[in-house]
């Protein structure tokens, strides 16, 4: 994560990670989640769902910090984030 000014305790802060799930068939392609993801994790996919919309896809899943904004802004209940628990993350190195 890049900081404008680096916090003094940056090396002690553990950045959480999230797993993004997209319920593709519910999506109506408004792109709110793509636009407002603060980490630019999402992009609209090329793929069509049954209704003919392009659902989003997590192209930079590893950057997701589980802030939940996409889940909160999605008007379709079509995207949600699960916080990846620490022990599962043990193998991954926290990005600071």
């Amino acid at each position: 994560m890049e900081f404008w000014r680096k916090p003094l305790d940056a090396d002690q802060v553990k950045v959480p990670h999230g797993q993004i799930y997209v319920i593709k068939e519910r999506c109506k392609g408004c792109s709110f989640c793509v636009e407002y993801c603060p980490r630019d994790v999402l992009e609209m996919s090329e793929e069509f769902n049954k209704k003919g919309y392009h659902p989003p896809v997590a192209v930079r899943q590893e950057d997701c910090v589980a802030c939940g904004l996409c889940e909160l802004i999605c008007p379709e209940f079509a995207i949600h984030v699960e916080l990846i628990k620490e022990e599962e993350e043990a193998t991954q190195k926290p990005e600071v």
Partner: protein
Amino acid sequence: MTTPGEVTTAEPMAPEQHPMSRFLREDRMPHIWCSSCGLGTTLTCFIMAVVESGIDPKDMAVISGIGCTGRVAGYLNFDSFHTTHGRAIPFATGLALANPDLRVVVYSGDGDLVAIGGNHFIHAARRNMDILCVCVNNFTYGMTGGQAGPTTPITAKATTAPYGSYEYPFNIPYLAVASGANYVARWTALHMRRLKNSFREAINKKGFRVIEIISPCPTAFARKNRLGTGLDVLKYYHANSIIQHGADPKDADIEMGGKIIVGKFLDVDRPCYRDYVTESISRQLGGK
């Protein structure tokens, strides 16, 4: 939602299972709202606020009138009532009085609540009835195709205002404050976290509480006024909303292309209708 540090699911969630599904009538999804309509977002914020408040869904009833927002009652897995146009508030009044343990929420649109239901709105506020009144304001009658309404800003176009609206619109927070509400806030559909917090705060209060949510109607209002997609409207909110807690609501008029003052305008604890009933009856009839 799995808030960091708060919720840990024992089992991995099925990807098709939305965490909010237990509060939704899943058998009625997808909802009827258009792509990039803000209504679904407001509903997400509402559900999250309910989750955070720790209220048992069975202690909550949601009443809607008619219109796009009127469909909210049909999607929420609470005791939910979809009444006639404009009449959600009096229906909710009867329900709240008959069962004081219920938290009664009216969730409806601007046309429903302040045009055809305007009289009920001001009187429920005057009585300080125990109702949380959520008014999603998209400046138009969306369900019927985009006609002008009581909140359509002056000069804005609508299918029944092809030359632009000639009427002054209602300023809903000002109306609510003047009528006697206990809690009045306004947010846009983009202020998700603030809206959620406002919901949570209001759910736990008594008396008549009004939350107005400015929300995009891409199909009717935005198209007729060439405002672009729902996303463009959200960007407009981003650029033009001013958060002013405690602002005088009379300064919170909304004009086409103007600033939108949002925030919490009022938060008081005037005794509600039932407080007066209980106090007065027990004093005069001896605690019956």
